[in-house]
């Protein structure tokens, strides 16, 4: 490939230099004192088992991860230097491991590429031209409008490549770009890379791969193991050095002695004759439809006991769906699946004891240790408690897990995790093993030892194995196999038979021939899947497009808006979220506006009347007649009083002493006793006030009765003016206060989740490796949520005025400007919270606690902030909700404008930049 003259020559220039670089995650060392020079202008490959540090090395080179120790030079400068990183990051493109990990699944193909184009500051015309050219050359042009999440694995990787190439990088870093991709797509992918390199000969490419047959095509290789470099050189040099004829074998030969000793070539003894009489798995016309989409179309096969049956096909062709139907995870739309002659029934627990299933993604519990995972599954399969330790020990030895029993799966290399998955699937000694791409991404040594186990199971224990894979050498090891494409089985035969039928020399060729035939057949109906070969535009023209000079600027509006645009698009694509956020707040406003009611009315009371005279009844009537109290049945005795207060039936109990009327008339002092239920203090205070008022009123009436009106003209009067809310209605007080509350909770939650979600799903890597700064990232993501919150603001204000009929007396402009500042503060608060959280659960929980409690309790919604004490008072004084609450009440009820409320604006205006600075400083621009 590429330039044959150059391949053998010693590299003239270096693109990457590592000097004693060490990287550890906790106790594990991913890279151990690595010193390495990678030549520029060529295609350099990193090969080696998983977990040896290939991905770590690439992420360090891309600047996505911070250098811990040692010196790493990339493109002629120290990558640890932030200034150099900023200068060179427009020249580097990085495609992380995992299918479409840095893509945005809800965005279309075009929008994804467009986003990256904007990040690197191309103008509109330039972007459109580049995108058109890239999509055309990768064959993605017909799918430009399809969401990235709905692409097949191969297409996702091509899209990833488009996104990486949009800014004409000088260094392209690809981390296992073809892992989990079918052979046809894989071939197309490498052809594409070759073409790009022909067009841009100066570009350096660094690739990590687990496929040795791919590595043979690279110019220069680095073989790695256990965080160290084993050997470097061209493929030929490596073969020469080890004296073997395949790279697979060369790699194994390069391994240290003790590792090599464990490796044996997989030997597959032939199946004993007549063993296949027993049918273990039988599928008859299995069909699965999801809506209009036929995922599996009329699939039939029979697999004998002890047979190893392979299932090959491109991603999304229906392999996994077929397997799920066989295990009973999915109920077939049509057709039947039988295991040992019994139809698969998801409710039948018996069948599950006979089947072991290993799903495509690692799906064991990462929070349980290896031992705990094994124990849990053993127990769930109902194994007798005394047999479990022996069985686990047996499996641990067989799968070489003894040393890692107490480790958490996340800390283990992929190969070990796959062995653990298999051990778990085998714990209950099933008769059938269903394995969905178990070796995807696993290195050759681990894969061979994995297969050795499978072969032993099949031949010695008569376990039937149904396995799907992408590796042709693995497919060759199967007794029989099926090729699957677009839900249909193309052919089922022995590997040799399949090769023969297409007169191909390798299985891969035969496979591709079958695929192309099938695609050609479907071509009339569907748009072309085979890419239309369109050469990339000439280099000169491509490079003529000017990059904006703003690249290294600290704050660039264009880059910020590229995040804004993307976030807004994602929001639009998730209408449930936007609807919940807008309609939800209105519902909440109703709930709280009507629910939190300070007009304490309809309180229950009852009387223990020992006197039973007209006077005592008059006194009771005085209370019962007010709108605040409702009289209940009279209290009979003290026990009754106690019981009825205890169960909360009475808020107030009054006892009128014997001889009340007589004593009062004679002028002897009498005491009326009143008990208030103090369990809820605020209500009790109100009751107290009411009772005292009514008592006083009764007294005045009595005095007037007795001494004439003159006695009560009173010495003076107190005239109470309830201002701003003359009817003292709760709604007038509460509804404007609810708006600040809701505009804190919802926007903060949304913005916090938007960042944490990127962290959890992996697209945060785009922040690490692109020129976008932390502030641009945060503000860019914040803007759509500010817009959404402002929509909320308008809705809530309209509801308050027109539905709740709360009079709005102040300046609408002041209110709106304050609203804008406030929602900016609220979303910024969410961003700050998000920088400390790594999981979405923690973000939800954290945001709920950090916004709900201060906003409800410390911000003057119910109790004025001036009445708070201690930490609550301090939080209340600085919390933005407090000040917006003042503005809300000021503009709604007090007819105020800017001038009067300036004092409340200042803290909010300070809060926004302060929060953004805190968020920016605590957000990391590199993974650590």
């Amino acid at each position, binding site marked *: 490939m590429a330039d044959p003259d150059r391949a053998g020559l010693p590299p003239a220039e270096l693109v990457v230099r590592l000097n004693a670089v060490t990287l550890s995650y906790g106790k594990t060392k991913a890279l151990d004192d690595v010193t390495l020079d990678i030549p520029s202008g060529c295609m350099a490959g990193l090969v080696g088992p998983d977990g040896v540090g290939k991905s770590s090395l690439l992420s360090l080179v891309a600047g996505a991860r911070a250098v811990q120790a040692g010196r790493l030079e990339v493109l002629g400068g120290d990558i640890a230097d932030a200034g150099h990183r900023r200068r060179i990051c427009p020249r580097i493109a990085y495609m992380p491991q995992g299918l479409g990990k840095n893509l945005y699944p809800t965005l279309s193909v075009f929008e994804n590429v467009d986003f990256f184009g904007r990040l690197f500051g191309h103008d509109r015309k330039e972007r459109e031209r580049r995108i058109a050219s890239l999509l055309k050359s990768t064959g993605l042009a017909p799918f430009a409008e399809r969401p990235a999440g709905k692409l097949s694995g191969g297409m996702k990787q091509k899209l990833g490549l488009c996104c990486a190439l949009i800014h004409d990088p000088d260094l392209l870093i690809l981390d296992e770009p073809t892992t989990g991709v079918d052979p046809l797509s894989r071939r197309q992918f490498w052809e594409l890379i070759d073409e790009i390199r022909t067009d841009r000969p100066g570009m350096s490419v660094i690739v990590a791969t687990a496929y040795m047959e791919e590595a043979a095509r690279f110019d220069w290789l680095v073989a790695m193991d256990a965080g160290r470099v084993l050997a470097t050189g061209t493929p030929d040099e490596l073969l020469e050095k080890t004296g073997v004829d395949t790279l697979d074998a060369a790699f194994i030969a390069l391994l240290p002695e003790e590792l090599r000793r464990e490796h044996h070539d997989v030997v597959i003894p032939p199946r004993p004759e007549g063993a296949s009489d027993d049918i273990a798995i039988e599928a008859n016309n299995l069909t699965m439809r999801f809506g209009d989409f036929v995922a599996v179309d009329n699939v039939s096969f029979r697999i004998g006991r002890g047979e190893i049956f392979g299932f090959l096909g491109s991603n999304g062709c229906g392999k996994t769906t077929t397997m799920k139907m066989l295990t009973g995870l999915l109920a077939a739309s049509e057709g039947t699946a039988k295991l040992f002659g019994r139809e698969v029934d998801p409710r039948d627990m018996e069948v599950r004891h006979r089947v072991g299933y290993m799903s495509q993604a690692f799906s064991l519990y990462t929070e349980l240790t290896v031992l705990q995972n094994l124990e849990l599954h053993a127990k*769930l399969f109902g194994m007798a408690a005394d047999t479990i330790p022996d069985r686990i020990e047996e499996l641990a030895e067989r799968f070489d897990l003894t040393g890692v029993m107490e480790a958490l799966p996340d800390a283990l290399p992929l190969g070990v995790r796959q062995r653990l998955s298999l051990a778990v699937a085998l714990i209950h000694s099933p008769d059938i093993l269903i394995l969905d791409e178990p070796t995807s991404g696993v290195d050759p040594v681990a894969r061979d030892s994995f297969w050795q186990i499978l072969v032993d199971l099949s031949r010695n224990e008569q376990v039937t194995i149904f396995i799907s894979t992408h590796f042709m050498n693995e497919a060759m090891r199967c007794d029989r196999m099926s090729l699957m494409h677009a839900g249909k089985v193309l052919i089922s035969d022995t590997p040799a038979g399949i090769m023969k039928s297409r007169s191909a020399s390798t299985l891969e060729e035969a496979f591709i021939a079958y695929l192309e035939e099938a695609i050609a057949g479907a071509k009339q109906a569907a748009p072309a899947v085979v890419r239309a070969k369109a050469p990339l535009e000439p280099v000169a023209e491509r490079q003529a497009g000017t990059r904006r000079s703003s690249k290294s600027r600290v704050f660039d509006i264009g880059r910020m808006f590229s995040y804004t645009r993307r976030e807004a698009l994602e929001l639009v694509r998730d209408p449930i979220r936007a609807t*919940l956020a807008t309609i939800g707040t209105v519902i909440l406003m109703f*709930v709280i506006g009507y629910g939190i009611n300070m007009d304490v009315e309809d309180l229950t009371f009852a009387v223990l009347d020992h006197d039973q005279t007209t006077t005592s009844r008059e006194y009771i009537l005085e209370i019962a007649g007010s709108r605040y109290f409702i009289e209940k049945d009279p209290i009979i005795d003290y026990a009754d009083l106690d019981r009825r207060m205890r*169960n909360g039936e009475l808020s107030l109990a009054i006892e009128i002493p014997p001889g009340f009327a007589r004593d009062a008339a004679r002028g002897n002092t009498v005491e009326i006793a009143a008990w208030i239920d103090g369990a809820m203090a605020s209500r009790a205070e109100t009751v107290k006030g009411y009772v005292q008022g009514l008592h006083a009123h009764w007294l005045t009436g009595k005095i007037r009765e007795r001494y004439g009106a003159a006695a009560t003209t009173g010495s003076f009067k107190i005239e109470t003016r309830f201002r701003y809310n003359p009817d003292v209605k709760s709604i007038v007080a509460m509804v404007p206060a609810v708006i600040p509350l809701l505009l804190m*909770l919802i926007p903060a939650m949304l913005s916090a989740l938007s960042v944490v979600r990127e962290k959890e799903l992996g697209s945060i890597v785009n922040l690490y490796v692109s020129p976008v700064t932390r502030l641009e990232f945060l503000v860019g993501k914040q803007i759509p949520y500010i817009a959404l919150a402002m929509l909320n603001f308008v809705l809530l204000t309209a509801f308050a005025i027109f539905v709740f009929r709360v009079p709005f007396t102040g300046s609408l402009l002041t209110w709106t400007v304050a609203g804008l500042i406030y929602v900016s503060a609220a979303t910024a608060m969410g961003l700050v919270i998000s920088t400390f959280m790594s999981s979405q659960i923690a973000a939800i929980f954290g945001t709920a606690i950090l916004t*709900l409690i201060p906003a409800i309790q410390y911000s003057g919604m119910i109790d004025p902030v001036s009445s708070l004490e201690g930490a609550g008072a301090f939080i209340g004084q600085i919390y933005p909700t407090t000040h917006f609450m003042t503005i809300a009440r000021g503009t709604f009820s007090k007819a105020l404008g800017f001038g009067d409320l300036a004092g409340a604006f200042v803290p909010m205006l300070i809060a926004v930049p302060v929060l953004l600075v805190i968020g920016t400083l605590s957000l990391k621009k590199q993974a650590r």
Partner: protein
Amino acid sequence: MRLSHIYHLGIKELWGLWRDPILLILIVYSFTLSVYTGSTAMPETLNRAAVAIVDEDRSPVSTRVSTAFYPPYFVPPQMITPAEMDRRMDQGLDTFALDIPPNFQTDLLARRSPTIQLNVDATRMSQAFSGNGYIQQIVTGEVSGFLDRHRSEQKLPVDLVLRARFNAELNKGWFGAVMNVITNITILSIVLTGAALIREREHGTVEHLLVMPVTPFEIMVSKVWSMGLVVLLASAVSLVFIVKGVLAVPVQGSFALFLLATALQLFATTSMGILLATIAGSMPQFGLLLMLVLLPLQALSGGMTPRESMPEIIQNIMLAAPNTHFVILAQAVLFRDAGLDVVWPQLLALLVIGAILFAFAMRRFRAFLK
């Protein structure tokens, strides 16, 4: 259904929680510091109310009135001019402004019945009423005291002796502390089960479980018991050490009865968490849904404002929420020392609501797994 499955799956949930330090920190925070600050910050009904006085009389009686306001009920009053009064109230600096007119004392002694004006910021509902009552009482008391030295008054010898039961000093923090614990019980139990379920689905581990001989019922019950247990323990510890210990709230009633009720409440809320998780497709949607459910639960269950004062329809709707019954029960048991004979209707209601939520969540959960 096998109990051993439920047990082992539940233990797995507990390990999962144990290995998530941030969640653990949040749990500890919400049951200790958050409860503590929440209840100590909670003011007495009338605590440090801001009052300003416009004294246009400057007589002995007006001075006597002005000096009668002091903490903890009021902050020392600001003496202001009439011009300042409106501005200060507009800015929300004062909740009350008392205006004593010129010649007040002269008019008083001449029985010309002068009028003192009391301005109340009625947007501050929690203080407006009780503060008004207090101030009227204080002013009347001071003026009467002044007058008593000048002339005698006709009086009726009937006194009203008011006593607050169960919380003699009407300390709002007592109730607030317990309400904070209840809020946290609700938030935590919903988040722990609901979010954990969504995470399991996003990581594909739920699917893995289904190929094993376990039923959805077993999976669900295991989540309910394990997360319920964590929250139950946390709330018990919080009640004993924080509420009773540090905050010294004289919680009276039967602790065991309260824990029984908490267990029933958790049965309902954990089921609700699973229900919400099955309705929400993704974590952000769950977060929003959570807010939509939590706020009404907290605001309308009777923990913040008395149920009696809510509109009839909301009172009735809220009877369907477990929190309403739990709050009623918590007040009765913890403050009024009520026994089983008193609170059995609430326990029964919690059980029924829990069972309905559980059954509903179960149905959705089965569909969710398909």
